[in-house]
C-alpha cells in the first residue's frame, strides 16, 4: 500500500470546492464542511447563498450580541442576512430548489457511487431514527451537486464505491467530489480523478476507493 504523505485538510477541501463556484451563482450549502465553502469563495466573485428554511442572501454568523433566534439557517444556527436578502416561506423556498433555480448545492455524504448515486441520509440500521430533511429535494432539484467528504470513513472504509450499500438520497445526481485526497468527477465512464492533493498519488487514491478510477487526460 502506498503511504499517505499529505492530503487536504477540511478547510483546504472547502477552499478547493470554492474555486468551482462561479461569480453570480445561487448556492445552497449543506451542514458541516460544505458550510465552510462560503469563507473561501474568491473576493472578486459575488455568490448568493440560499438557506432552505426561507432565506436567499444568507450572510456569515452574527457578531456577538447581534444574534437573532428568528434568523437561522437550515442547520438551525444563527446567521445574518446580506443587504439585498429576501425572506419567504417554505413552499416558496422549495420552488427555488425543486424548480431548478439553485445553481449549485454542496453536500456531505456517506457514500457516492460511480454512477453518481448519493447516499447521505441513513445507514439503514434497524434502530436508526430516519431523518431526511431537505437532502432528497436538493439532489432532485439542483442541477449541479458537489460533494465534500473525507475519502474514507473513520474506520477506513471507502466512501466512493461501485454501488451504494446505504439507502439512496438520489440516483445519478452527483457531479463532482472533493475529498482529502483528490477532486473526482462523476462521468459516464465512472469516477475520473481530475486533481490530486499535494503528495498524494493516483495509486494511493485508487487503493482507498471502492470503484475503478479513471486518470484524467
Amino acid at each position, binding site marked *: 500500500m502506498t503511504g499517505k504523505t499529505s492530503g487536504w485538510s477540511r478547510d483546504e477541501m472547502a477552499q478547493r470546492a470554492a474555486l468551482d463556484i462561479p461569480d453570480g451563482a445561487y448556492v445552497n450549502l449543506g451542514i458541516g464542511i460544505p458550510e465552510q465553502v462560503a469563507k473561501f469563495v474568491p473576493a472578486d466573485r459575488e455568490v448568493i447563498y440560499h438557506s432552505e428554511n426561507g432565506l436567499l442572501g444568507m450572510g456569515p454568523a452574527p457578531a456577538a450580541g447581534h444574534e437573532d433566534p428568528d434568523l437561522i439557517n437550515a442547520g438551525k444556527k444563527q446567521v445574518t442576512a446580506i443587504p439585498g436578502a429576501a425572506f419567504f416561506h417554505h*413552499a416558496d423556498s422549495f420552488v427555488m430548489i425543486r424548480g431548478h433555480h439553485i445553481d449549485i448545492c454542496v453536500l456531505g455524504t456517506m457514500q457516492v457511487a460511480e454512477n453518481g448515486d448519493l447516499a447521505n441520509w441513513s445507514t439503514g440500521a434497524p434502530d436508526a*431514527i430516519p431523518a*431526511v430533511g431537505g437532502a432528497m*429535494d436538493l439532489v*432532485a*432539484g439542483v442541477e449541479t451537486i458537489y460533494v465534500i467528504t473525507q475519502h474514507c470513513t473513520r474506520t477506513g472504509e471507502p466512501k466512493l464505491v461501485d454501488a451504494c450499500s446505504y439507502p439512496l438520497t438520489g*440516483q445519478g445526481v452527483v457531479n463532482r467530489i472533493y475529498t482529502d485526497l483528490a477532486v473526482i468527477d462523476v462521468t459516464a465512464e465512472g469516477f475520473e480523478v481530475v486533481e490530486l492533493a499535494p503528495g498524494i498519488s493516483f495509486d494511493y487514491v485508487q487503493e482507498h476507493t471502492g470503484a475503478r478510477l479513471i486518470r484524467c487526460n
Partner: protein
Amino acid sequence: MIDKQNASPAAAVADIFDGATVMVGGFGEAGSPIELIHALIDQGAGNLTVINNNTGSGHVGLAALIENKQVGKMICSFPRTANSTVFPDLYRAGEIELELVPQGTLAERIRAGGAGIPAFYTATTVGTPLAEGKETRCFDGRDYVMEVGLKADFALIKCSKADRYGNLVYSKTARNFSPVMATAAAITIAQAGAVVEAGALDPEVIITPGIFVDRLVEIFDPEQESRLVAAGRSYP
C-alpha cells in the same frame, strides 16, 4: 365586526379534540408557537397527528407535547434533534408512529392541501426507499412520484404582528411553514407578538391574508425555546 382575537391561548385551543390532526409552525425554535403548544398540553387532547418539520428540543414546546404522550403520529422531515431524545425514545419503544417526508415535499403537500389540489408529482424521492409504495409516472422522459395534499383540523402558528381580520406578518426565517399551514387547516390559530389596528399593516406586505386565520391570541413577549432548553426547563 370581524374580530378574531381570543382572550387566552387556553380559549383558542379549547376545542382541539382527541385524534385531531394538528399542524404546528416553526423550524426548530424559529416560529414555534410555544405558548399555544403549552396550552394544548394543559388542555390534554390525545392521540394527535402532528405535522412539523422536527420533533422539538429539550422538554418544552413540541418535545414536551410528545413527551406528554399526546402525539400518536408525527409527520416530519427530520425527527432527530441534538438536544432531545424524547421522540427517539418513544419511537424505539414503538409508542409513536412516524411518517417521514422530505422537507420540500412536506411544504408542497401542505400547500396543495390548502390550495384544493389533491395530488401532484415531484421528482423528489424517485429511486429512494421513500418512494416505495408510491405511484411513479414519467413526464417528458423523467420519473416523478405522486404525492397527496395534506390538510389538518387545526394549525398552531406564530407571527410577529396581526390585525383583527387575521392578516399576519412574520419575522425573518420564523416565517417558514406557517403561511402554508394557515391555508391547510380547518381552524388556524395564530399567536401574535402584537395585534394592531386594521389598516396598520401595509396591504403589500401581508404574508398571510386574514381569510386563512380563524383565531388570534396576543402574546406580547413569547418564550424563547433555546433559552428554556438552556435553562433546563420542562413543561408542564
